[in-house]
């Protein structure tokens, strides 16, 4: 088994657990495959949470933290769900730190130019801009639940794991968010 794992190159069909095992055995290509597989979703999730700067840095920190404690990863949840959980905590920690920094009156001028502004420019179509506006009016928890469900296709159970809630609460948050977005878009 190990010999086969060592000899074959990791491919699209390799599961996350197989890639983790290969990386643990010293195969760096497996780590590359894992990053390529999950980094876009992590970047998307960070952007959807309103992260305006350093998205790549956040994604990188997420992977560093995840690979540093890969032994604590339980296979009963998907790796992506686990990565989302880590990333969300990182973003919340950063926001708390930023809030404290702003309260101290030390606002960095670099904050003015953000990647989020760049993303806004990319979103050219009016319909998309309206949708973004509607989603951004949701509460933070509603937005997280809604986007994890729509963008990443996570189940309510997985969403509950990421946001630290219950499956039922995640379902309620999703339907409330859906109703609010519809009202903002069509009413």
């Amino acid at each position, binding site marked *: 088994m190990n010999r086969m794992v060592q000899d074959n190159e990791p491919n699209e069909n390799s599961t996350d657990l197989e890639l983790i095992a290969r*990386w*643990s*055995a*010293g195969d*760096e290509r497996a*780590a*590359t495959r894992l*990053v*390529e597989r999950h*980094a*876009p979703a*992590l*970047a*998307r999730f*960070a*952007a*959807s949470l309103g992260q305006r700067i350093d*998205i*790549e840095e956040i*994604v*990188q920190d997420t*992977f*560093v933290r995840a*690979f*540093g404690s890969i032994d604590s990863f339980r296979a009963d949840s998907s790796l992506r769900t686990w990565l989302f959980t880590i990333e969300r905590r990182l973003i919340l920690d950063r926001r708390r730190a930023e809030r404290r920094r702003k309260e101290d009156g030390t606002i960095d001028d670099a904050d003015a130019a953000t*990647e989020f502004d760049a*993303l806004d420019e*990319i*979103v050219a179509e009016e*319909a*998309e*801009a309206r*949708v*973004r506006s509607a*989603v951004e009016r949701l509460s933070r928890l509603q937005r997280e639940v*809604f*986007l994890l*469900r*729509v*963008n*990443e*296709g996570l189940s309510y159970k997985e969403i509950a794991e990421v946001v630290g809630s219950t499956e039922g609460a995640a379902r309620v948050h*999703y339907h409330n968010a*859906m109703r609010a*977005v*519809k*009202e903002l*878009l*069509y*009413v």
Partner: protein
Amino acid sequence: MFDCANVEMRERLPELVAGTLDATTRARVEEHVAACPECASELETLRLVRAAFARAPKIDASRVVASLPRPRTVVAAPQRNAKVIRWLDWRIAAALTTITVGGLSLAVSQRMRDVTAVLPRDSAQVQSASATDPNAAGGGLPLPNKSVPHDRQTPPTDTRSSAPEPVSPAVTSPAKPQLSVGGGMGDLDDASLQSLLGALEEIDRAPVAPSAEPDRSPVLPVIKAGDR
């Protein structure tokens, strides 16, 4: 704006947009959406949401991979095992050395105890006998008997059983007078002397049995007075 009453189908819409449904379920949901205007409208909204938030900066995977920590199991585990094995080796070696040295010490002390158990009783005899006859010391230490072939000599391990042999019966029965080899009569008290004299008289009074062995004493020629 109404919601579809088919909750199961409606719940599958986000997964249809995200592309996480299996082929069978996907076909069922698409069939329902084709016939349900509410679900079709909601699906369109969900597609807009996904499109609006689909864009994100491209991540340089090689840069992320370069920053990852090294796997711990590859390097750390063998070193830890080697350390444990080395430590075990030392412990086993120390245990074997202790057992060997301890066993040797026990054997030597046992041997010395056997020797010293005999020595105090015979030391006086050995000292006095060695002055006249070196072989007399055999009562104390199992010295090899010169007249016995080497392979028939008593081995040292038989010291305990052979030790009392050279010692006179007086040694094992303290009530009787003790007579040391080479010692003078002055060593004996009056009672012992009396007892010894009595024993000698009994020996003298005892009838001498004719010897079965032929008399090998040299026969001297009888010289008569006239022969001179």
